[in-house]
């Protein structure tokens, strides 16, 4: 009996050692050989076509599959992409790009200047209905071609030879290099796109890309698998062998999957969990994001056509309290329209621009004084049925209720809340069918212009219906200026004019919460929402 027990134990010990050893080798082998990162893409993007995509879920993937002439990394530095170098003319209107010889598509063919010419003409062609076509209008004649006033041949793009491309602009643009790295300016292949113009990106066989990763499998709404592209020119930079996007919309499930180790990273974190995660998790981070939430006054509608009413409303809310007790994701009380983090000429635009006298907490006396000057002392005579319009969503509802309560308490005015579904909200907002409306805006590129050209008379996103010739002229001058310093100076003037007219009530500058596993190294999230998967490596 005793003998058999000894043999039994010895066998067990021996087996454990063997298994342990094999497992250890295997684990070590895995680390060196094949690394996979699984990221929650939240929703399956409507398209992965660089010209057609408009949403951040799509950009997150496209950023890692396609490469433009210039590459903007997550630290907002412009580095050579497909073009190994470029020359800019003295007047800032002409860019000559020299495409590297080893730039290849994922099927091994060379990337040429023609691929860019084709992509840009495709974007400008009105028949293709590219939603981001406005970003192409920096190119010479692009707007006229889109409007049908000029033929396509006159577009400001010229192929000198297979490896040389000249882009001509309407006017010098201080942030143009960054624009060349933007989705709509990325190359696509004519032979591929023409065969399946609408759905070439839905199938790995036809989805030919030129970036660090290429598609190998695409199961709609389920999983998208990308692998390191062996044809990519700068593949030494790429450490990951495989990058998978899964699409878990439900935040609770996504968090559980992360905590159980089924995924390595996610952006859609349940808000209620954030305070706990902030305290307890080493894998939770809050990153800056170029975005703000504000309440837009309709400056053409009673009673907000009165500037003093707008001032009173803006000064009577406690932004600090809203971010601390309602929003909960470490957002920052907003006191201007351009968020922090836009560094131009070495200076943060927001720091330079100041706060326009808007404090994070309530400015009770000033607010009440403004309301009295508007003709409603202590809220007397305040009209009935003043409505705050927001799009149905839990957080928007809580913010709306808090604002309503603050206006009632501090100004003694009644505001009723109306919530509509987001498409209706957007339609009413853009057409000016509201009194006050919740609104938000996220940057398209790293320059204050992306926020300030919203309020020109012709702009479609001019929610406050703010139309002022002086403002238009400031923006126009800023756009045409060849001197970056001058541009910034003009933009500061524009923001000041707009804020002094109290056209919006800024609420908060956004942040982006993100969770990433500890074994994921060297990752970064840009304020525009891009993740540098091409620089990440895994260390277990």
């Amino acid at each position, binding site marked *: 009996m005793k003998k058999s027990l000894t043999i039994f134990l010895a066998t067990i010990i021996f087996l454990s050692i063997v298994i342990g050893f094999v497992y250890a080798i295997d684990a070590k082998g895995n680390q060196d050989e094949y690394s996979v990162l699984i990221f929650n893409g939240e929703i399956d993007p409507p398209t992965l076509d660089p010209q057609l995509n408009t949403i951040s879920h799509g950009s997150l993937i496209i950023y890692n599959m396609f490469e433009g002439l210039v590459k903007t990394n997550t630290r907002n530095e412009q580095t050579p992409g497909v073009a190994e170098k470029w020359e800019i003319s003295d007047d800032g209107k002409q860019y000559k790009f020299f495409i590297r010889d080893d730039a290849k598509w994922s099927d091994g063919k060379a990337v040429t200047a023609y691929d860019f010419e084709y992509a840009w003409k495709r974007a400008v062609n009105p028949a293709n209905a590219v*939603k981001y076509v406005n970003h192409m209008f920096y190119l010479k004649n692009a707007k006229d071609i889109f409007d049908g006033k000029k033929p396509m041949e006159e577009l400001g793009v010229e192929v000198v030879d297979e490896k040389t491309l000249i882009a001509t602009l309407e006017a010098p643009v201080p942030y143009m290099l960054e624009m060349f790295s933007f989705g709509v300016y990325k190359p696509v292949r004519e032979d591929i796109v023409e065969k399946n113009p609408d759905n070439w990106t839905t199938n790995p066989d036809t989805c030919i890309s030129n970036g660090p990763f290429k598609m190998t499998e695409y199961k709609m709404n389920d999983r998208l698998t990308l692998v390191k592209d062996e044809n990519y020119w700068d593949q030494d930079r790429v450490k990951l062998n495989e990058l998978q996007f899964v699409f878990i919309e439900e935040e609770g*499930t996504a968090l559980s999957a992360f905590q159980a180790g089924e995924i390595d990273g996610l952006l859609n974190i349940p808000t209620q969990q954030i305070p706990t995660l902030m305290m307890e998790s080493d894998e939770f981070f809050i990153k800056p994001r170029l975005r703000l939430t504000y309440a837009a006054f309709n400056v053409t509608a009673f009673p907000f056509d009165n500037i003093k009413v707008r001032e009173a409303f803006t000064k009577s809310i406690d932004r600090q309290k809203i971010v601390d007790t309602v929003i909960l994701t470490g957002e920052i009380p907003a006191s201007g329209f351009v968020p922090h983090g836009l560094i131009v000429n070495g200076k943060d635009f927001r720091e330079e621009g100041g706060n326009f006298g808007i404090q994070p907490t309530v400015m009770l006396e000033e607010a009440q004084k403004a309301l009295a000057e508007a003709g409603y002392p202590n809220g007397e005579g305040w009209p009935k049925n003043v409505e705050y319009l927001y799009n149905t969503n839990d957080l928007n509802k809580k913010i709306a209720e808090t604002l309503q309560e603050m206006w009632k308490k501090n100004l003694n005015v009644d505001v009723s809340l109306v919530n509509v579904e987001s498409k209706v909200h957007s339609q009413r907002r853009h057409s000016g069918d509201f009194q006050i409306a919740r609104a938000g805006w996220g940057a398209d590129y790293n320059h204050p212009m992306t926020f300030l050209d919203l309020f020109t008379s012709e702009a479609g996103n001019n929610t406050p219906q703010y139309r002022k010739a002086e403002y238009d002229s400031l923006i126009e001058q800023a756009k045409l200026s060849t001197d970056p310093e001058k541009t910034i100076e003009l933009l500061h003037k524009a923001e000041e004019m707009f804020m002094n007219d109290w056209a919006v009530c800024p609420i908060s500058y956004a942040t982006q919460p993100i969770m990433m596993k500890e074994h994921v190294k060297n990752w970064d999230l840009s304020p525009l929402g891009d993740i540098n998967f091409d620089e990440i490596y895994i260390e277990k």
Partner: protein
Amino acid sequence: MLNYVIKRIISMIITLLIIVTITFILMHLVPGGPFTDSERALSPAVEQALMEKYKLNDPIWKQYLEYIKGIIRFDLGPSYAYTGRNVTDLIKNGFPVTAKLAVISFVLILIIGVPLGVTSALQHNKFMDRLIMVFSTLGVTIPKFVIATLLLFLFAYKLKWFPIFGAESLKSYILPAIANALASIAYITRLNRSSMLEVLEQDYIRTARAKGVKGYKIVYKHALKNATIPTVTVLGTQMVTLLSGSFIIEKIFALPGIGRYFVQSVSNRDYPTIMGVTIFFSFMLLLMTLIVDIAYGYLDPRVRIQKTSKGDK
């Protein structure tokens, strides 16, 4: 019988046509078009180009006729929200997942619901009956998403018996199917219990007992067949409930089924997808009802005789 089936199919087509028409009208009455972005206003020219591309500038009646022509060719049109994908493809892609989930849920209902109901009836007012009734009350009252979240937390997250999300293997379907079926199981249990109780009181059962037929034989041979008729009646609609009600379950477990299009397509104003999914589910509902009605005939000769005599007239 054949006459009856043909008649039913014709009425099905008419019903479908009415559903298509009503959905089409309602859809176009809702404010906000398919290309109103939630935050960014589209330039009017781009919007115009998109409207042109999808033929939305045509008069409504023309769009309607084109759509009907499409349906006849089984072409449900392109999705506006998913560039380059056809609604037919969306359904083809998603339906296998939704169907698998529904079938597993359905099997669970049959193998759990029916026996529990019978047991409960046989143990009428005893401990077992009470216990089953407590559970079935819970099952009916707790919402699906609560059950789904609890199951996910306990069996996938804590115990790691099942994956948390996705549809990689059959294992992925177990938790969603339980969450999806629980309310129906509880419902079927209660239904079966009450009809079984009713049947057990009937004269022919008493006669069988008096003649000395054994207990289990009475239950399985005489009582069960009649007691399941009400169950069969509701099974068809339950199947459709399982198919269409899986939306929330699919979302929680991140299953790539078609449930998501139900809600998403409406908020996207993705007209062809709204229509496609509505038509598809209506068709399923009508088909299930037809199958149930035919199955009736086999279970209950009285129904068959009535229907045939009507058909003969």
